């Protein structure tokens, strides 16, 4: 067998193993993060009780975007 070809095959096998190892490690880290996030479920449940606060904090942003939208139109109209 061509030594160059053999070397390439060997390197591909090595890379594939390394890639697989990395994927496993990534998957473990992701799972760990997910478990950690689930441990905070009580906090998420509490925040659900304040959902109208969300609307209250969302509304000023919407109003600002509305003002920007119409403000821009008005200023471009004047120009």
């Amino acid at each position, binding site marked *: 067998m061509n030594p160059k070809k053999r070397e390439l095959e060997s390197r591909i096998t090595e890379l594939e193993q390394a890639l697989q190892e990395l994927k496993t490690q990534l998957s473990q880290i992701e799972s760990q993060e997910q478990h950690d996030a689930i441990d905070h*479920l009580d906090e998420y449940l509490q925040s659900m009780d304040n959902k109208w606060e969300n609307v209250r904090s969302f509304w000023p942003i919407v109003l600002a975007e509305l003002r920007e939208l119409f403000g821009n139109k008005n200023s471009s109209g004047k120009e």
Partner: protein
Amino acid sequence: MSVTTHIPENHVPDHHKAQVAQGPNWIKWLQIAGLVYLLLVAVSLIGGGFKLAAGDQAKELFAFASNPVAGLVVGTVATALIQSSSTVTSIIVGLVAGGLPVGIAIPMVMGANIGTTITNTIVSLGHVRQGEEFRRAFSAATVHDFFNLICVVIFLPLEIMFGLLEKMGAMASQWLVGGDSMSMNGFDFIKPLVKPPVKFLENTVLGGLPEAVTGTLMIVLGIVTIFMVITLIGKLLKSLMVGKAKQILHSAVGRGPVSGIASGTVITVLVQSSSTTTSLVVPLAGSGVFTLRQIYPFTLGANIGTCITALLAATAVTGANAIFALQVALVHLIYNVLGVVVVYGIPWLREIPLLAAQRLADATVQNKLYAVAYIGLVFFVVPLLLIGGSNLMGI
């Protein structure tokens, strides 16, 4: 070539430490038992109230909703305003007990599925100041909306044309209680439990008033009681079941979509609220720890789990309409199971809610007005336009 990556030393996760059985909270469980009893009484009150107020004219009373689109809109808007599909479906079961035809109730139940999705959308608005986090949270909330909208687009025409769900519900209810009987003898053990307070209210507290007034007051009292009871049950179960919910979620990590659907179903049964389940995944997805594709099956399980409340409510109904009350509760279950099987089971259909949610979230991050327009249109404006259009077309 060697690749080395530092991995944090595996530590025992908190959930393993926390999985120590919590002492039973008897007072809360007793309160829940009492509230479930009140729920059954309230459903019975609505049914009894309608019989008193409308007599045999109940069908005519609901003529306004005989248009299936109107029924869908009533279910959607009522649930979006009350923010509880369990409350609305329990009320629908009570109405069927009072004479509302199952055919009219089915689109209302479908509408309840759409209306309930507003809650997690509102929860996702809390992430608005964090651009990328908001994009993920908003798409996690609206994927459930798009899934439920697709279910209606598929099953409402089938229901209008062939009465598919009504027939399946009838078959299932007759199979459950025996095809030769319409009196649901199997559920008669509930009657002695719920009848005394209903009769006490009807004959003593509200006695002496004209029947129509007594009936109307019973209906109003039943609706208010269902609303309060389900809200209180939800609050109590949330505090009691959070440990169990964590345990279920931990066990579902990395196990694929079927496990996600199953865990979403079980958690919703435990907390008796689909909006609690679907809202829980919003911060999980928002933080980027769970992908949209990972939380999608979980929200579908919520659709199935929420059917338990209407089934429970149906056990309170006795008499000739009991089987129809059970039928509509079973239709709710069949519809949600079929929705998951069809929409999630067909690969290209499965992708539509994901794509739609992602596109909408991308647009909303650029301009928050899209979120306002979306909520207004889906839950209020389009439903009302649909009623107008369908009336004009004489559907």
